[in-house]
């Protein structure tokens, strides 16, 4: 991961309270941004969109920093903003960045050990509706509980359960049969 360039500009005359607040926010950013970027990437499916979604989310967090009283809940708060930002992208007529390159984008992450199943699953995840995809990412990647996922998304636990069930059924339907673990087990 590229190291962040530059730092904050010198701000002489800052109050002690503001300095303490900014130091606390910076410490949070340094500690959690790498993980949040990964979550944002899984939500959006695009590295650049993920960076932009997270940047906007962190800006909103910065503005609300003093109001988030429970510091243990900051991650949950940011995840919620990220989900909402991702859901709102279409409203801004989001334009994908264009990068001139003579090298094909490394879209595939074929790992010799996963026999292509990981790539196939990822391809299907990208076709899920945004809400279902958010549930899948939060449950299976972030490993939030059903209750935590429901709280974060503002939906019922039952909806979380049904979304996960439907998503898994969709994966089962669309992943090529030869990649199905059960199918491969039968061949042995």
């Amino acid at each position: 991961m590229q190291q962040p360039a530059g730092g904050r500009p010198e701000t002489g005359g800052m109050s002690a309270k503001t300095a303490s607040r900014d130091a606390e926010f910076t410490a949070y950013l340094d500690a959690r941004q790498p993980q949040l970027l990964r979550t944002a990437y899984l939500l959006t499916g695009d590295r650049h969109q993920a960076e932009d979604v997270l940047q906007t989310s962190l800006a909103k967090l910065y503005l609300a920093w003093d109001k988030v009283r429970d510091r243990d809940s900051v991650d949950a708060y940011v995840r919620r903003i990220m989900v909402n930002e991702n859901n709102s992208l279409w409203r801004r007529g989001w334009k994908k960045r264009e990068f001139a390159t003579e090298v094909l984008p490394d879209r595939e992450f074929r790992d010799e050990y996963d026999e292509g199943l990981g790539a196939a699953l990822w391809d299907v995840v990208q076709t899920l509706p945004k809400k279902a995809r958010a549930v899948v990412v939060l449950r299976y990647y972030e490993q939030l509980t059903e209750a935590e996922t429901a709280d974060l998304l503002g939906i019922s636990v039952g909806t979380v359960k049904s979304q996960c069930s439907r998503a898994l059924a969709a994966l089962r339907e669309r992943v090529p049969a030869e990649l199905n673990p059960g199918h491969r087990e039968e061949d042995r």
Partner: protein
Amino acid sequence: MSDPEQLLRDALQHRADHTTYDATPVGEVESGARRLRRRRRTVGAGLAAAAAVVVVVVPLAVVANRDPGTDPAPTSTTTPGVPPSSSPPSTTPEPTPELGEPPRIAYAEGDRIHEPDGRVFRLPPGLGVSGFAAYRGGYLVADTRNFEGSVGLTRYDADGREVASWATTGVPVSSADGSVVAWTSYAPLESGITAPTLVHLGSAVGGGPELTQEIDLVQPGVVGVLGDEVVVQAAFAEDVWVTDLTASPRRIESLDRASAVSSALGLVAGSADAGAVGRVVDPATGEVVWERQGVTVGPFSPDGRYAVTTATKGGRREIVEALTGDVVAEVEASGNDDFPTLLELTWEDDAHLLGDLAYNCCAHLARVSLDGSVAPGGLRGDIGGTGFAFAFGS
């Protein structure tokens, strides 16, 4: 976690870990925040004025007593342009052997609310429905939009016209007899709007005041209605409160989270010990009626005789005696064994539940009986769709 779930998790982790990212320096975050603050000040002035109409005017229309008919109808801001729900009543769909009897309660799918008598209420497209309640001839509808950590809640009149709209957490909840509905409203933190967070309780059948009470909780959601009291759950906190919207809310100390209420029994279900224990408690005293490790409890049957428990690991569901927690039946697991089948359950009547059931290819609505057997529930949905929503009652 089952094998397919573990495969999915591994695939997501592998993808996320092997992608390179450009982290945002804190200076750029702060610059972005300053731009956002300037934009909000421009937009927020207009929104604040609109919010004030909704939030301030409603409390002014409230009186402390609850005699119906002593107050004028709540002030509303009608939004023209929404077509009325002029769909003619359709005949109740004929049951088919493979689908079974259709639901005997109202349900929502897509942008339509279907009543058991065949009436269809058409909503503006694209908003989705996460929950709804019949209200004063029309509906209160929580949608599936997520704006700044909330969902939208809209009141529609009997002609399908939007009366008012605001932000809420969760869904509107009816009392067991459908006579009153409770919901919350608040200004999301990120909106920049300053407005109180309110709990609302209104007569669903028309007439009478809407009661409101300001409540100092972050993004509260209504769990249920117990008589003339509302059970409220705070987000991001282990806080469960009961309020009659006149006196100060009181906390239910024996619960961290609430999941359901039974107005027939006057009991509240929820969890404690960071979700490790499912409990049923008396909200008046905090007394624990019963508890069980490793389950969540709810919902209760309308007559208060039964409840549903769901194992926090594995998702196994059981129907239990509501007052003791004794197991009556285990809900059948069905569908493809490679993928766990999970049901979202709502009581259809005192002896049946309805829930989403996903097979390999399809999604159905299923009907669960008290012996735990599962049968088709009369509706087929789209795999990957948003499923069915029901009116949420206590």
